[in-house]
Protein backbone atom coordinates (compact mmCIF):
# COMPACT_ATOMS: atom_id res chain seq x y z
CA UNK A 1 0.00 0.00 0.00
CA UNK A 2 1.55 3.29 -1.06
CA UNK A 3 1.89 5.91 1.62
CA UNK A 4 -0.66 8.66 1.25
CA UNK A 5 -0.65 12.34 2.18
CA UNK A 6 -2.61 13.75 5.11
CA UNK A 7 -5.14 15.15 2.66
CA UNK A 8 -5.89 11.73 1.21
CA UNK A 9 -6.62 9.63 4.29
CA UNK A 10 -9.78 9.56 6.41
CA UNK A 11 -9.54 11.65 9.57
CA UNK A 12 -9.17 10.28 13.07
CA UNK A 13 -7.26 7.14 12.11
CA UNK A 14 -10.35 5.44 10.71
CA UNK A 15 -9.69 2.40 8.54
CA UNK A 16 -12.53 2.19 6.06
CA UNK A 17 -11.74 -1.11 4.36
CA UNK A 18 -12.81 -3.93 6.65
CA UNK A 19 -10.41 -6.86 6.69
CA UNK A 20 -7.83 -5.23 4.42
CA UNK A 21 -5.06 -6.94 6.42
CA UNK A 22 -5.82 -9.74 4.00
CA UNK A 23 -3.67 -7.84 1.52
CA UNK A 24 -0.71 -7.90 3.93
CA UNK A 25 1.32 -11.05 3.49
CA UNK A 26 2.90 -12.83 6.41
CA UNK A 27 3.82 -16.01 4.54
CA UNK A 28 7.48 -15.06 4.46
CA UNK A 29 7.61 -15.52 8.25
CA UNK A 30 7.50 -19.30 7.77
CA UNK A 31 10.36 -21.60 8.62
CA UNK A 32 8.22 -24.70 8.14
CA UNK A 33 5.51 -25.15 5.56
CA UNK A 34 2.41 -27.29 6.09
CA UNK A 35 1.89 -29.68 3.20
CA UNK A 36 -1.66 -30.96 2.85
CA UNK A 37 -2.54 -34.35 1.46
CA UNK A 38 -6.02 -34.04 0.01
CA UNK A 39 -6.32 -37.81 -0.35
CA UNK A 40 -5.90 -38.42 3.35
CA UNK A 41 -7.99 -35.48 4.59
CA UNK A 42 -11.31 -36.35 6.24
CA UNK A 43 -12.40 -32.70 6.49
CA UNK A 44 -12.88 -32.83 10.24
CA UNK A 45 -11.78 -29.17 10.31
CA UNK A 46 -9.72 -29.62 13.48
CA UNK A 47 -6.97 -27.66 11.70
CA UNK A 48 -9.32 -24.94 10.47
CA UNK A 49 -10.87 -24.17 13.83
CA UNK A 50 -7.43 -23.97 15.48
CA UNK A 51 -5.53 -21.90 12.91
CA UNK A 52 -4.64 -18.44 14.32
CA UNK A 53 -4.08 -17.02 10.84
CA UNK A 54 -7.28 -17.96 9.03
CA UNK A 55 -5.07 -19.88 6.63
CA UNK A 56 -6.98 -23.12 6.16
CA UNK A 57 -9.00 -22.60 3.01
CA UNK A 58 -12.51 -24.02 2.89
CA UNK A 59 -15.11 -24.37 0.21
CA UNK A 60 -18.58 -25.57 1.09
CA UNK A 61 -17.35 -26.60 4.50
CA UNK A 62 -14.50 -28.72 3.16
CA UNK A 63 -10.81 -28.06 3.21
CA UNK A 64 -9.40 -27.17 -0.19
CA UNK A 65 -5.90 -25.98 0.65
CA UNK A 66 -3.66 -23.68 2.60
CA UNK A 67 -3.29 -19.92 2.26
CA UNK A 68 0.47 -19.66 2.02
CA UNK A 69 0.30 -15.87 1.70
CA UNK A 70 -0.66 -15.69 5.36
CA UNK A 71 0.31 -19.02 6.96
CA UNK A 72 3.18 -18.39 9.40
CA UNK A 73 4.07 -22.05 9.70
CA UNK A 74 3.24 -22.46 13.37
CA UNK A 75 2.35 -26.12 12.80
CA UNK A 76 -0.84 -26.13 14.86
CA UNK A 77 -2.74 -27.58 11.87
CA UNK A 78 -0.42 -30.56 11.53
CA UNK A 79 -0.41 -31.13 15.29
CA UNK A 80 -4.21 -31.03 15.45
CA UNK A 81 -4.70 -33.30 12.46
CA UNK A 82 -5.74 -36.64 13.96
CA UNK A 83 -2.76 -39.03 14.28
CA UNK A 84 -4.54 -41.72 12.30
CA UNK A 85 -5.14 -39.35 9.42
CA UNK A 86 -1.93 -37.29 9.22
CA UNK A 87 -3.07 -35.28 6.24
CA UNK A 88 -0.77 -32.40 7.14
CA UNK A 89 2.97 -32.51 7.40
CA UNK A 90 5.43 -29.75 8.27
CA UNK A 91 8.36 -29.47 5.88
CA UNK A 92 11.27 -27.05 6.09
CA UNK A 93 10.41 -24.08 3.91
CA UNK A 94 13.78 -24.26 2.19
CA UNK A 95 13.20 -27.93 1.31
CA UNK A 96 9.68 -27.19 0.16
CA UNK A 97 10.94 -24.39 -2.03
CA UNK A 98 13.69 -26.61 -3.43
CA UNK A 99 11.17 -29.37 -4.16
CA UNK A 100 9.16 -26.87 -6.15
Amino acid at each position, binding site marked *: *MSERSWKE*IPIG*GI*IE*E*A*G*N*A*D*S*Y*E*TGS*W*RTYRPIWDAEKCIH*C*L*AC*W*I*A*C*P*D*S*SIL*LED*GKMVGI*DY*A*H*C*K*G*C*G*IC*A*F*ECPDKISALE*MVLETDAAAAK
Partner: protein
Amino acid sequence: MPAPKQLAQHEDLVTGGHRACAGCLPMTAMRQLLLAAGQDTVVGCATGCVEVVTTIYPYTAWKTPFIHNAFENSAATISGAEAAYTSLRKQGKIDKKINFIAMGGDGGTYDIGLQSLSGAMERGHNMLYICYDNQAYMNTGIQRSGGTPKGTATSTTPVGKVIPGKTQFPKPLTEIMIAHDIPFVAQATPGYPKDFTDKVEKALAIDGPAFINVLAPCPRGWRYPAEQSMEYARLAVNTCFWPLFEVEYGVFKVNRKPKEKLPVSKWFEGQGRFRHLFKEANKGIIDEVQAEVDRKWAWILKREELTQA
Protein backbone atom coordinates in the same frame (compact mmCIF):
# COMPACT_ATOMS: atom_id res chain seq x y z
CA MET B 1 -25.00 -25.98 18.63
CA PRO B 2 -21.84 -24.88 16.87
CA ALA B 3 -19.18 -27.46 16.19
CA PRO B 4 -16.49 -26.91 13.53
CA LYS B 5 -18.75 -28.21 10.78
CA GLN B 6 -21.56 -25.85 11.68
CA LEU B 7 -19.19 -22.95 12.30
CA ALA B 8 -17.67 -23.56 8.88
CA GLN B 9 -20.96 -22.37 7.41
CA HIS B 10 -20.30 -18.97 8.98
CA GLU B 11 -18.03 -16.31 7.59
CA ASP B 12 -14.55 -15.99 9.07
CA LEU B 13 -14.55 -12.41 10.33
CA VAL B 14 -10.89 -12.10 11.26
CA THR B 15 -8.54 -12.15 8.28
CA GLY B 16 -5.01 -13.41 7.98
CA GLY B 17 -2.30 -10.83 7.53
CA HIS B 18 -2.40 -9.76 11.16
CA ARG B 19 0.99 -9.65 12.89
CA ALA B 20 0.47 -12.04 15.79
CA CYS B 21 3.28 -14.48 16.55
CA ALA B 22 3.05 -17.88 14.89
CA GLY B 23 0.88 -20.14 17.03
CA CYS B 24 -0.92 -17.31 18.85
CA LEU B 25 -4.00 -18.87 20.45
CA PRO B 26 -5.58 -15.53 21.39
CA MET B 27 -6.00 -15.02 17.63
CA THR B 28 -7.64 -18.43 17.34
CA ALA B 29 -9.94 -17.31 20.12
CA MET B 30 -10.84 -14.19 18.14
CA ARG B 31 -11.73 -16.23 15.06
CA GLN B 32 -13.88 -18.62 17.07
CA LEU B 33 -15.52 -15.75 18.93
CA LEU B 34 -16.64 -14.03 15.74
CA LEU B 35 -17.59 -17.25 13.96
CA ALA B 36 -20.10 -17.60 16.77
CA ALA B 37 -21.07 -13.93 17.11
CA GLY B 38 -21.50 -13.07 13.44
CA GLN B 39 -21.25 -9.97 11.34
CA ASP B 40 -23.62 -7.75 13.31
CA THR B 41 -21.20 -7.36 16.18
CA VAL B 42 -19.33 -4.35 17.48
CA VAL B 43 -15.98 -5.37 18.91
CA GLY B 44 -13.95 -3.26 21.31
CA CYS B 45 -10.52 -4.27 22.50
CA ALA B 46 -8.16 -2.95 25.14
CA THR B 47 -4.60 -2.12 24.24
CA GLY B 48 -2.68 -5.36 24.10
CA CYS B 49 -1.48 -8.08 21.76
CA VAL B 50 -4.74 -8.62 19.90
CA GLU B 51 -5.40 -4.93 19.35
CA VAL B 52 -1.85 -4.25 18.25
CA VAL B 53 -1.43 -7.14 15.86
CA THR B 54 -4.83 -6.75 14.18
CA THR B 55 -4.93 -3.01 13.54
CA ILE B 56 -1.57 -1.73 12.38
CA TYR B 57 -2.64 1.26 10.29
CA PRO B 58 -3.61 1.27 7.45
CA TYR B 59 -4.50 -2.42 7.86
CA THR B 60 -7.23 -4.05 9.88
CA ALA B 61 -7.90 -7.75 10.27
CA TRP B 62 -11.47 -7.07 11.46
CA LYS B 63 -14.42 -7.57 9.17
CA THR B 64 -16.77 -6.31 11.87
CA PRO B 65 -16.83 -2.80 13.31
CA PHE B 66 -13.93 -2.53 15.74
CA ILE B 67 -12.79 0.06 18.26
CA HIS B 68 -9.70 0.39 20.36
CA ASN B 69 -9.68 3.25 22.85
CA ALA B 70 -7.04 2.67 25.55
CA PHE B 71 -5.71 -0.01 27.89
CA GLU B 72 -8.03 0.21 30.88
CA ASN B 73 -11.34 1.10 29.32
CA SER B 74 -12.63 -1.35 26.75
CA ALA B 75 -15.65 -2.17 28.95
CA ALA B 76 -16.45 1.54 29.43
CA THR B 77 -15.96 2.21 25.73
CA ILE B 78 -18.30 -0.56 24.66
CA SER B 79 -20.80 0.42 27.35
CA GLY B 80 -20.89 3.84 25.67
CA ALA B 81 -21.41 2.29 22.25
CA GLU B 82 -24.18 0.11 23.66
CA ALA B 83 -25.80 3.16 25.27
CA ALA B 84 -25.67 4.95 21.92
CA TYR B 85 -27.32 1.95 20.27
CA THR B 86 -30.02 1.85 22.96
CA SER B 87 -30.67 5.56 22.55
CA LEU B 88 -30.79 5.45 18.75
CA ARG B 89 -32.99 2.37 18.78
CA LYS B 90 -35.46 4.01 21.15
CA GLN B 91 -35.56 6.94 18.77
CA GLY B 92 -36.31 4.59 15.89
CA LYS B 93 -33.07 5.43 14.11
CA ILE B 94 -31.80 1.85 14.06
CA ASP B 95 -33.62 -1.44 14.42
CA LYS B 96 -31.30 -4.33 13.69
CA LYS B 97 -29.98 -6.48 16.52
CA ILE B 98 -26.33 -5.75 17.23
CA ASN B 99 -24.04 -7.63 19.59
CA PHE B 100 -21.59 -5.68 21.73
CA ILE B 101 -18.36 -7.37 22.73
CA ALA B 102 -15.61 -5.76 24.80
CA MET B 103 -12.30 -7.53 25.20
CA GLY B 104 -9.03 -7.27 26.98
CA GLY B 105 -6.08 -9.45 27.79
CA ASP B 106 -5.39 -10.47 31.38
CA GLY B 107 -3.46 -7.23 31.95
CA GLY B 108 -6.31 -5.17 30.53
CA THR B 109 -8.89 -7.11 32.54
CA TYR B 110 -7.52 -8.52 35.81
CA ASP B 111 -5.46 -5.38 36.43
CA ILE B 112 -5.78 -2.00 34.78
CA GLY B 113 -9.27 -2.50 33.33
CA LEU B 114 -10.94 -4.14 36.32
CA GLN B 115 -12.71 -0.98 37.50
CA SER B 116 -14.07 -0.22 34.07
CA LEU B 117 -15.25 -3.83 33.70
CA SER B 118 -16.84 -3.88 37.13
CA GLY B 119 -18.69 -0.63 36.44
CA ALA B 120 -19.99 -1.78 33.06
CA MET B 121 -21.23 -5.08 34.50
CA GLU B 122 -22.91 -3.35 37.45
CA ARG B 123 -24.69 -0.93 35.13
CA GLY B 124 -26.18 -3.87 33.29
CA HIS B 125 -25.24 -3.04 29.70
CA ASN B 126 -26.27 -5.67 27.20
CA MET B 127 -22.74 -6.69 26.34
CA LEU B 128 -20.31 -9.56 26.50
CA TYR B 129 -16.86 -9.10 27.95
CA ILE B 130 -14.17 -11.51 26.80
CA CYS B 131 -10.92 -11.72 28.71
CA TYR B 132 -8.34 -13.45 26.55
CA ASP B 133 -6.10 -14.59 29.32
CA ASN B 134 -2.55 -15.45 28.31
CA GLN B 135 -1.39 -15.00 31.86
CA ALA B 136 1.02 -12.07 31.52
CA TYR B 137 1.54 -8.73 29.77
CA MET B 138 2.79 -10.40 26.60
CA ASN B 139 2.54 -7.35 24.33
CA THR B 140 4.97 -5.32 26.42
CA GLY B 141 7.41 -8.17 26.94
CA ILE B 142 6.00 -10.85 29.25
CA GLN B 143 5.64 -9.02 32.56
CA ARG B 144 3.63 -10.57 35.40
CA SER B 145 -0.04 -9.65 35.74
CA GLY B 146 -2.68 -10.31 38.36
CA GLY B 147 -3.57 -13.35 36.23
CA THR B 148 -0.10 -14.90 36.14
CA PRO B 149 0.06 -18.27 37.94
CA LYS B 150 2.15 -18.70 41.05
CA GLY B 151 5.68 -19.78 40.29
CA THR B 152 5.73 -18.37 36.75
CA ALA B 153 8.94 -16.90 35.42
CA THR B 154 8.20 -13.58 33.70
CA SER B 155 10.31 -10.54 32.83
CA THR B 156 9.36 -8.87 36.11
CA THR B 157 9.28 -12.05 38.19
CA PRO B 158 12.41 -13.71 36.88
CA VAL B 159 13.86 -16.79 38.48
CA GLY B 160 16.66 -15.36 40.55
CA LYS B 161 19.03 -16.73 43.12
CA VAL B 162 16.59 -15.86 45.87
CA ILE B 163 13.11 -15.60 44.34
CA PRO B 164 11.85 -18.43 42.09
CA GLY B 165 9.34 -16.58 39.87
CA LYS B 166 5.97 -15.08 40.80
CA THR B 167 5.23 -15.54 44.50
CA GLN B 168 1.49 -14.85 44.48
CA PHE B 169 -1.48 -16.88 43.34
CA PRO B 170 -3.51 -15.30 40.53
CA LYS B 171 -6.45 -13.07 41.27
CA PRO B 172 -9.66 -15.13 41.06
CA LEU B 173 -11.15 -13.01 38.30
CA THR B 174 -13.88 -15.42 37.24
CA GLU B 175 -15.03 -15.61 40.87
CA ILE B 176 -15.02 -11.81 41.06
CA MET B 177 -17.28 -11.69 38.03
CA ILE B 178 -19.56 -14.37 39.49
CA ALA B 179 -19.83 -12.15 42.55
CA HIS B 180 -21.18 -9.38 40.31
CA ASP B 181 -24.37 -11.46 40.00
CA ILE B 182 -24.61 -10.90 36.25
CA PRO B 183 -26.69 -13.28 34.13
CA PHE B 184 -23.82 -15.27 32.65
CA VAL B 185 -20.22 -15.96 33.65
CA ALA B 186 -18.06 -18.71 32.19
CA GLN B 187 -14.58 -20.04 31.68
CA ALA B 188 -13.58 -21.35 28.29
CA THR B 189 -10.64 -21.83 25.97
CA PRO B 190 -10.21 -22.07 22.20
CA GLY B 191 -8.70 -25.49 22.96
CA TYR B 192 -12.33 -26.63 23.25
CA PRO B 193 -13.93 -24.74 20.36
CA LYS B 194 -17.43 -26.13 20.66
CA ASP B 195 -17.61 -25.35 24.36
CA PHE B 196 -16.29 -21.83 23.79
CA THR B 197 -18.51 -20.96 20.84
CA ASP B 198 -21.58 -22.42 22.57
CA LYS B 199 -20.87 -20.11 25.48
CA VAL B 200 -20.48 -17.11 23.20
CA GLU B 201 -23.85 -17.85 21.60
CA LYS B 202 -25.47 -18.27 24.97
CA ALA B 203 -23.90 -15.10 26.37
CA LEU B 204 -25.04 -13.03 23.41
CA ALA B 205 -28.56 -14.43 23.53
CA ILE B 206 -28.95 -13.46 27.18
CA ASP B 207 -30.27 -9.98 27.88
CA GLY B 208 -27.75 -8.19 30.06
CA PRO B 209 -24.06 -8.36 30.81
CA ALA B 210 -22.03 -11.53 30.37
CA PHE B 211 -18.42 -12.39 30.98
CA ILE B 212 -16.25 -15.20 29.62
CA ASN B 213 -12.70 -15.74 30.81
CA VAL B 214 -10.86 -17.43 27.96
CA LEU B 215 -7.53 -19.11 28.60
CA ALA B 216 -5.46 -18.46 25.48
CA PRO B 217 -1.97 -20.00 25.48
CA CYS B 218 0.93 -17.93 24.22
CA PRO B 219 3.88 -19.92 22.85
CA ARG B 220 6.22 -16.96 23.16
CA GLY B 221 5.43 -16.13 26.78
CA TRP B 222 4.83 -19.67 27.99
CA ARG B 223 7.80 -21.03 26.08
CA TYR B 224 6.48 -24.22 24.50
CA PRO B 225 6.65 -25.23 20.82
CA ALA B 226 4.15 -23.16 18.83
CA GLU B 227 2.36 -26.14 17.28
CA GLN B 228 1.23 -27.26 20.74
CA SER B 229 -0.95 -24.25 21.57
CA MET B 230 -4.22 -26.20 21.46
CA GLU B 231 -2.66 -29.01 23.47
CA TYR B 232 -1.59 -26.66 26.26
CA ALA B 233 -5.09 -25.20 26.33
CA ARG B 234 -6.54 -28.72 26.73
CA LEU B 235 -3.99 -29.67 29.37
CA ALA B 236 -4.96 -26.66 31.45
CA VAL B 237 -8.53 -27.96 31.38
CA ASN B 238 -7.69 -31.59 32.02
CA THR B 239 -5.47 -30.77 34.98
CA CYS B 240 -8.38 -28.68 36.30
CA PHE B 241 -6.13 -25.65 36.40
CA TRP B 242 -8.69 -24.05 34.07
CA PRO B 243 -12.03 -25.76 34.62
CA LEU B 244 -14.61 -25.28 31.89
CA PHE B 245 -17.75 -24.16 33.64
CA GLU B 246 -20.53 -21.65 33.39
CA VAL B 247 -22.78 -19.85 35.82
CA GLU B 248 -26.13 -18.89 34.39
CA TYR B 249 -28.29 -16.83 36.73
CA GLY B 250 -26.40 -18.30 39.66
CA VAL B 251 -26.65 -21.92 38.57
CA PHE B 252 -23.31 -23.67 38.10
CA LYS B 253 -22.66 -26.12 35.33
CA VAL B 254 -19.33 -27.85 34.87
CA ASN B 255 -18.91 -28.36 31.15
CA ARG B 256 -16.04 -30.80 31.28
CA LYS B 257 -15.16 -33.23 34.01
CA PRO B 258 -11.91 -34.88 32.95
CA LYS B 259 -12.16 -38.69 33.07
CA GLU B 260 -8.67 -38.71 34.42
CA LYS B 261 -7.80 -35.54 36.33
CA LEU B 262 -4.15 -35.00 35.46
CA PRO B 263 -1.66 -33.56 37.94
CA VAL B 264 -0.94 -29.90 37.33
CA SER B 265 2.71 -30.80 36.72
CA LYS B 266 1.52 -32.35 33.43
CA TRP B 267 0.53 -28.86 32.28
CA PHE B 268 3.69 -27.27 33.68
CA GLU B 269 5.95 -29.75 31.92
CA GLY B 270 7.28 -28.50 28.64
CA GLN B 271 6.55 -24.86 29.41
CA GLY B 272 9.79 -22.91 29.79
CA ARG B 273 8.19 -20.47 32.22
CA PHE B 274 7.72 -23.33 34.74
CA ARG B 275 10.96 -25.22 34.08
CA HIS B 276 12.60 -24.06 37.33
CA LEU B 277 9.72 -25.51 39.35
CA PHE B 278 11.00 -29.02 38.60
CA LYS B 279 14.22 -28.39 40.48
CA GLU B 280 14.24 -30.11 43.85
CA ALA B 281 14.34 -26.81 45.77
CA ASN B 282 11.16 -25.51 44.09
CA LYS B 283 9.00 -28.60 44.03
CA GLY B 284 7.07 -27.32 47.01
CA ILE B 285 5.61 -24.65 44.72
CA ILE B 286 4.07 -27.28 42.44
CA ASP B 287 2.53 -28.92 45.50
CA GLU B 288 1.13 -25.59 46.63
CA VAL B 289 -0.38 -24.90 43.21
CA GLN B 290 -1.77 -28.44 43.09
CA ALA B 291 -3.43 -27.98 46.48
CA GLU B 292 -4.97 -24.71 45.30
CA VAL B 293 -6.19 -26.27 42.05
CA ASP B 294 -7.77 -29.17 43.97
CA ARG B 295 -9.44 -26.84 46.44
CA LYS B 296 -10.91 -24.66 43.71
CA TRP B 297 -12.02 -27.59 41.58
CA ALA B 298 -13.80 -29.16 44.55
CA TRP B 299 -15.52 -25.85 45.30
CA ILE B 300 -16.78 -25.56 41.72
CA LEU B 301 -18.12 -29.13 41.82
CA LYS B 302 -19.71 -28.45 45.18
CA ARG B 303 -21.47 -25.35 43.91
CA GLU B 304 -22.71 -27.23 40.87
CA GLU B 305 -24.21 -29.80 43.20
CA LEU B 306 -25.75 -27.10 45.39
CA THR B 307 -27.20 -24.97 42.63
CA GLN B 308 -28.34 -27.69 40.24
CA ALA B 309 -30.42 -29.28 42.98
